[in-house]
């Protein structure tokens, strides 16, 4: 059966080049990067090269790159590594749970957190971040792009606010990396987390930019790996894979690949919006025209700074009236289309997305919203297939259960 995977914001497959780059590091060049001998040196060289690539990816110095296990570790390190009892923390209510749960944990250790809510468009207003600051605020953490809606946050503005206030600024860059150009200097952040598997790299590896001189305490202690900032033998194949993925990501942003993904996403979105009772979450006006979908500036949104609502190229989050989103996800899966609707709770059942709820959607609409996130390798044929399957499934669901949206559990 033909299958089309449109859940890239959950994870992505390795690109063949990434797989090939990693291949020698499992068996032939298996050395420990800390060892003195030739085998160790080969591994060390590979890690150094990867670090240089990541430094280019972030626009920072090599010494500012720490390899780790992925986005959760990066997010946790920023919070647990910087905040101390009595500190105040500012973040948003649409962050990944790696931030939200870490903030909850810190509440037990005397750190108070202010969660800034988004605008209905999904955008965080920098002025709200500014207002949340207190004299004892030590850290601001805001994501670069939201996983559910793809909405890009005004991190440069927030970076300026952080600098003026003398507050540290962490960006969860997991959903932005590989989709928009990164520049930690321009963003004005002190920490920046990414994860390889969201950008066609391997799972279980990521990187954290830590600006030089930052007093971030290591989560893991042990050996003197990563300049004593992250103990544990380097995941050499993973790090090599991450670097290759970063290299390809930079290329994709220049060679038109990402623009192509945006065009496909726009066609997909416009096609689905042909169905009645649908709309896009995470942009205003709610009905997007293909040519405007990438850059939607709703007149209802004029912040002091006049920031437009921008989205990453690969994501669209669409609500469907009069059906149960969970059933639609299952129906689409059985027809060969992999998408996501909300977040999976521990059992694997779906909870309505906390992001959409924070944007002010009611529970019924949040439950009836699906996220389509395209791989970098998506094709016209993929979009054609999805545009054939989705309307059929939606019409079937609406036909058998016309009032389901009102009674969905």
């Amino acid at each position: 059966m033909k299958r089309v995977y449109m859940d890239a914001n959950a994870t992505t497959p390795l690109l063949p080049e990434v797989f090939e780059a990693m291949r020698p590091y499992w068996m032939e060049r298996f050395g420990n990067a800390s060892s003195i001998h030739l085998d160790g040196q080969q591994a060390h060289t590979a890690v150094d090269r990867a670090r240089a690539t990541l430094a280019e990816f972030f626009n920072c110095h090599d010494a500012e790159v720490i390899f780790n296990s992925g986005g959760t570790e990066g997010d946790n390190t920023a919070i647990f590594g910087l905040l101390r009892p009595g500190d105040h923390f500012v973040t948003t209510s649409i962050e990944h749970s790696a931030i939200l749960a870490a903030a909850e944990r810190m509440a037990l250790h005397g750190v108070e957190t202010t969660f800034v809510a988004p605008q209905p468009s999904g955008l965080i207003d920098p002025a709200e971040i500014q207002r949340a600051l207190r004299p004892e605020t030590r850290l601001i953490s805001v994501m670069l792009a939201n996983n559910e809606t793809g909405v890009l946050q005004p991190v440069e503005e927030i970076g300026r606010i952080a600098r003026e206030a003398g507050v540290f600024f962490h960006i969860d860059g997991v959903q932005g990396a590989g989709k928009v150009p990164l520049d930690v200097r321009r963003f004005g952040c002190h920490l920046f987390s990414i994860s390889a598997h969201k950008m066609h790299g391997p799972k279980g590896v990521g990187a954290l930019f830590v600006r030089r001189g930052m007093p971030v305490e290591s989560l893991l202690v042990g050996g003197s790996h990563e300049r004593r900032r992250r103990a544990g033998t380097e995941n050499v194949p993973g790090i090599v894979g991450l670097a290759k993925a970063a290299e390809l990501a930079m290329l994709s942003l220049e060679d038109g690949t990402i623009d192509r993904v945006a065009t496909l996403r726009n066609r997909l979105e416009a096609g689905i919006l042909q169905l009645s009772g649908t709309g896009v979450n995470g942009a205003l006006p709610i009905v997007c025209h293909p040519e405007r979908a990438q850059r939607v500036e709703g007149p209802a949104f004029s912040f002091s700074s006049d920031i437009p609502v921008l989205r990453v190229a690969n994501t669209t989050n669409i609500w469907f009236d009069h059906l149960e989103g969970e059933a639609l996800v299952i129906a689409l899966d059985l027809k060969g289309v992999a998408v996501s609707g909300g977040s999976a709770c521990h059992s694997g059942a779906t909870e309505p997305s906390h992001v959409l709820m924070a944007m002010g959607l009611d529970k019924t609409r949040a439950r009836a919203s699906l996220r389509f996130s395209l791989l970098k390798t998506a094709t016209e044929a993929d979009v054609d297939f999805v545009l054939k399957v989705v309307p059929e499934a939606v019409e079937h669901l609406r036909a058998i259960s016309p009032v389901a949206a009102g009674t969905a559990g």
Partner: protein
Amino acid sequence: MIESTTIAVAMSGGVDSSTVAAMLAHEGDAVVGLTLQLWDQTRLAGKHGIPDAPKAGRCCSLDDVYDARRVAEHLGIPYYVVNQQERFEQDVVRPFVAEYLAGRTPIPCSLCNNHLKFDQLLKTAQSIGAERIATGHYAVNEYDAVRGRWILKRPADLAKDQTYFLFGLTQEQLAHTLFPLGRMTKPEVREVARQRGLALSEKPDSQEICFIPGGDYKQFLTAYLEEQGRQLPETAGELVASGGEVLGQHEGIFNFTIGQRKGLGVSSPTPLYVLQIDPASHRVTVGADEELATRSLRARRLNWISIPELTAPMRVRIKIRHRHEPAWATMEPTGADEVVATFDEPQRAVTPGQSAVFYDGDEVVGGGWIV
């Protein structure tokens, strides 16, 4: 593309429903496994003595979902967990709590089957292109062309008979449901599970109410009400003998169910049993075993299965709780959606809130809720 012959199997992670999935998959049917996530077992954990880590054998404990998923993987069938927590709370937990607060002893399993499980499974199944569902209940359903009705019958393994909890099934639901275990015994089911290589063939049966870890109702009520910002209402009152004599005081009507002997807090030369609970006066009446016996019952919120409607007195055997041997009675309609049944022999502990299920031989005629 999913075929219209696809069967959605309700998988709980137990032996019975896992075996159903294995049998149908083995027979070559297109099978999709579904688990309804009904209650978050961690929600009240640790509060008011509720165990921290629920054991397996309750709906949607993580272990059970894990087991169900493993079975689906083993069989190579698609498997999904469907979130019905809000609906379960609204249609089962809240009515359960309300009934309890009103001094009755509700059976949540029938509430769940009648108002949620079958309705939702069929809805989800049809949403994903499956026309029928299959469950691991021990019951038989078949179409009787003469009467033009779907009939529900007791299973081959009477010790596992679950028809008592299924009296609320509609004709529509019966027409779209398979009970593949209806003609098998539990040992046969375990044997099939072994043959199909199911690792959980020896997993013990679950007995308790799925959302009440430990089975302590009062503990659950206290913790649930507290979570809702409410308190267990003050229902302390008098404990009286059937003659009206006050024997003592009790701490709340929630501590009692009809027929209960232990924990009454009064001593007596002969064993005393709870005869009646009056939610208005908080009075709990106790008496001798013989006094528990009742000649008749009244049931409402009826559902008819083998007959379209009860229009004249009918001889039936009636089951008034899960572990009750159906007893002969004559029932007759006494109003819209109400019957009164008179037993041939007085029955012990007819309990408001439980259901009464009417049998004609092996067939379920229908059932209702005792008032």
